[in-house]
């Protein structure tokens, strides 16, 4: 089997960790403090409500993105684990992956 058509479990695991890292960075790096400041400093302005709603929508969207990346990462990590199981049973050459790695 040509090497160019092979993927090692380590590569897949690294990819999973990288994407998981994106997800963690997103969750930890999100800034969400300003809406409170707008609320306190701009009483009576319509923009207060808009900023609060935007903060809620932004938070939900951030969670959805993080969830999406986590799902992808988990699927890739699961795929990596399967490769390793196959390696352990001496079926070392892997072409593609199980079709249900990411479905």
């Amino acid at each position, binding site marked *: 089997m040509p090497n160019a058509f092979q993927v090692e479990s380590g590569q897949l695991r690294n990819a999973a960790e990288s994407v998981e890292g994106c997800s963690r960075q997103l969750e930890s790096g999100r800034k969400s403090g300003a809406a409170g400041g707008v609320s306190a400093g*701009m009483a009576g302005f319509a923009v207060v409500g808009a900023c609060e709603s*935007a903060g809620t929508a932004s938070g939900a969207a951030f969670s959805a993105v993080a969830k999406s990346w986590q799902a*992808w990462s988990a699927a890739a990590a699961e795929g990596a684990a399967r490769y390793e199981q196959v390696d352990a049973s001496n079926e070392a050459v892997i072409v593609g992956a*199980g079709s249900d790695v990411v479905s």
Partner: protein
Amino acid sequence: MAIGKTQALEGDVGALRVQAEEFRANGTLLQEGNQTSVRVHGDLLTSWFGDASNSAAESMGRAEQQVRKIAEAHSDAADAAAAGADGIEGYQLLAREGITRAEAEHFTVAEDGSVTAPSALLYVRGEADPEQVVTAQHALDEKARQYEASIKQHLAGMAAEDTEVAAAISSAFDGLPEGNMNPDGPPTDQPNEDRSDDPLYPNGDPNISDINQGGVGDCWLLAALGSTALTNPQKIKDVITDNGDGTYTVHFQDGDVTVNDDALLDQGDDQAKWVAVIETAYAEREGGEYDDIEGGYGDHALQDLFGAETGNFDPDSSNDLFFGDNKSPDDSYDVMEEALGDGRPVTASVHDRIGIDGGHELMVTDVYEKDGVKYVELMNPWARNTDPVINGVEEAGGEAYADGRIVMTIDDFSDEFDKVRYVEDWD
């Protein structure tokens, strides 16, 4: 609450600038994460081929598009907040200056910007000519009017900028995926079809003829959708948002589900796209497989989608006399007539009767009286009737047609059908 003196003097536009910076920082964070995840996957693809690789690429591609939209929303909101802060601040400085100067000259400025002049007598020393006092008062009143016009103009400017920036920030986040970014792609346990070239409503509005059930056992959902299309099509239009980018958001009562029209449930081209949008979204809501919408009850769909208050009953009073869920044929006819006349959907379920194996739910399309006999007209979600159904209905005393229509007397209907489901109240 109108923008007034308090906002002119105390409004902290700096807080809005901080908000703009945070929107921008969040957008950058999303962009960077997106670039990283796509690059990582791209690197992997140089050595990963096969079905799983294709699926992973499709999944990542879908996520990349959606994350990019969210990042752009943050960037747009940042621009709107920054521009709004500038605009509000410009008018605020002018309004504040006018208020401060007027009050320094002992004019009274009300919350709405109205200005009252001080009494001219305050400025009179000793004996004063009454005419001079009157003239002085007129001059002060005129100055008050000038202050008022200027202050109110600038307060109105603040209010207009405020309204504009609020609308811009809100619209930046409109229609974004929230609860379900569909990271795993559409359900795959039944064939999907690319419907991106099809109109959402092929008949202009949702229509009962848009229903055409194929191999998926979701007659209950289709019966609910078909009867709603017949009685109140606007309800269906209200529950689907076309996001303009090939995605459609279905607004369930407990949250939104967004689907992509390049992969919708394929029950055949005769099933309208809007129906497939709802079927696919419903399957994702129920667990992510089309198998999750096999079997159900039409009234549950009417609750889940429209928040309708629903009722159901057995139309045959000879059964379950003591359990309260049955009605006489005449009472059943009356309930159905009132609901349909009032623009409320009605469906009817049958089980192992009229040539149908197992359970099936149909749309009640009309009830009418002719020569003293009351009739019920139904439509099969299959959009046709098989020979066993045509024969079964005829044996039961009714008529069934190849196009899916069934007509029975209310007495025969009550004998054959075991449950009528309907909307009691939309709200």
